[in-house]
């Protein structure tokens, strides 16, 4: 039985210290990450949308989704308020268009779908690692791994992931995957973008889309609000929006931080493996050092402290 020496203990402490010192460096690197350099995105110009729902129909066809409740040329859906809210993506519709009626303005139509964040909160929250952010820019998920815990539904700042409530046996998450399997990985335009008659959406590299968006604002400063939604929100999103009315009037959450959601917990999470790996060794070391020269192995040390002094 080898006794722990002072030298061994000090060496161990120093290794632990080095690990602690390394941690902040790693964190700083992560915070500056701006996503994949050639990540694709879509610029949505809401001033052009007329609410024809062609994108919804295209999504349904492309993703082989179940039959909708109403035809895609039925515009009564804009007046629906399921559970008192505007329509949201469901297991049957990965994208939906909603109509907003700003005061003294023409109606505004807003298409919602997964925004494909640079640093997705859904991915971070998933404990079975079902989610992947691909280099092409899509946030996809492995439905074979998904256990249906719905953490991502709570984590998503845009309320996008939907749930297959209709499945009694194996309910899982359902959401827009940027047409990754059928189109994006071959460099092709997503189905909704292609179907749009008004070219509300432009598909391309996110970096270029940001330039196009700012060019449009600069050329028509009266037409647009001087903001590209998604450029900074929660660390940047692949899908970007231009609007003619203040974004909150079209139902956007304008109180989102510019930092990725994960930054709220990154500091804490970085400590967890350190605590688990180092603390047991460290405090065992302290304990052994503190009880050095005293006899060991007689059961509960604390209860026998007094007796061992005899």
């Amino acid at each position: 039985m080898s006794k722990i020496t002072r030298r061994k203990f000090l060496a161990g402490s120093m290794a632990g210290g080095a690990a602690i010192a390394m941690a902040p460096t790693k964190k700083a690197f992560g915070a500056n990450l701006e996503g994949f350099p050639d990540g694709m995105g879509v610029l949505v110009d809401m001033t052009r949308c007329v609410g024809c729902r062609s994108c919804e129909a295209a999504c349904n066809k492309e993703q082989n989704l179940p039959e909708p409740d109403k035809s895609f040329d039925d515009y009564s859906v804009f007046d629906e308020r399921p559970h008192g809210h505007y329509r949201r993506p469901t297991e049957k519709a990965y994208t939906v268009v909603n109509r907003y009626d700003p005061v003294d303005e023409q109606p505004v139509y807003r298409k919602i779908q997964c925004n494909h964040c640079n640093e997705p909160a859904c991915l971070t929250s998933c404990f079975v690692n079902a989610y992947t952010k691909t280099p092409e820019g899509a946030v996809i998920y492995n439905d074979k791994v998904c256990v249906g815990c719905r953490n991502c539904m709570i984590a998503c700042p845009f309320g996008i992931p939907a749930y297959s409530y209709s499945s009694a046996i194996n309910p899982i998450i359902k959401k827009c995957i940027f047409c990754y399997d059928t189109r994006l990985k071959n460099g092709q335009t997503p189905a909704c973008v292609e179907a749009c008659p008004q070219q509300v959406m432009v598909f391309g590299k996110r970096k270029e889309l940001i330039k196009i968006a700012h060019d449009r604002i600069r050329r028509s400063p009266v037409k647009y609000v001087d903001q590209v939604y998604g450029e900074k929100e929660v660390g940047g999103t692949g899908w970007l929006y231009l609007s003619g009315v203040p974004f909150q009037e079209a139902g956007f959450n304008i109180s989102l931080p510019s930092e990725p959601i994960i930054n709220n917990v990154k500091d804490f999470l970085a400590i967890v493996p350190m605590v688990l790996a180092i603390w047991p060794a460290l405090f065992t070391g302290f304990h052994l050092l503190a009880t050095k020269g005293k006899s060991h192995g007689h059961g509960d040390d604390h209860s026998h402290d007094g007796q061992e002094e005899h």
Partner: protein
Amino acid sequence: MVNTGKKFMAGLAGLFICCLLMMNCYAMESYPEEIEIDVLSELYQGVVFDHGWHVMMTEGCAVCHHHTTGTPVVDSYCAKCHADEKPMATVSCQDCHSSEPVTAGSVREKDAFLFHDDKPDLKAAYHLSCLGCHQEMGAPVGCQDCHARTEAGDAFFRAGQFAPTGSADSSGY
């Protein structure tokens, strides 16, 4: 003498009015009365566009044709460069607006004309121009007010004979 003078002035005025009309109708001598737009027909049938009627209704050719017809430019953005433009050889929509979908890459092509870089593709050019004006003028704006849908279109929109049967439950939310 007075009569001759009056006649002369009337003639001059007449000539002036003729000149004005001619200027307005500069490029309109040979415009088509009807245009069938069917380059994109798949979900919808082609549209027979009553060009002649729209020529009568609009202020001038430039409302739709920007600066290519030689009539006074309406859009202030175009007028920055093309205020005194002569009629051009190419006036039809598809001469400038590509039938290929626009992507960020095509918008930012280096060889594109500086102020023409972000121009809509053909499908969008038609819809933005037609529908934009129809909205302003209170003209029909429904998809099927202009297009007759094909059977493929009905299937796409899950309408007509492809309408939802209602058997699906609505617990999707």
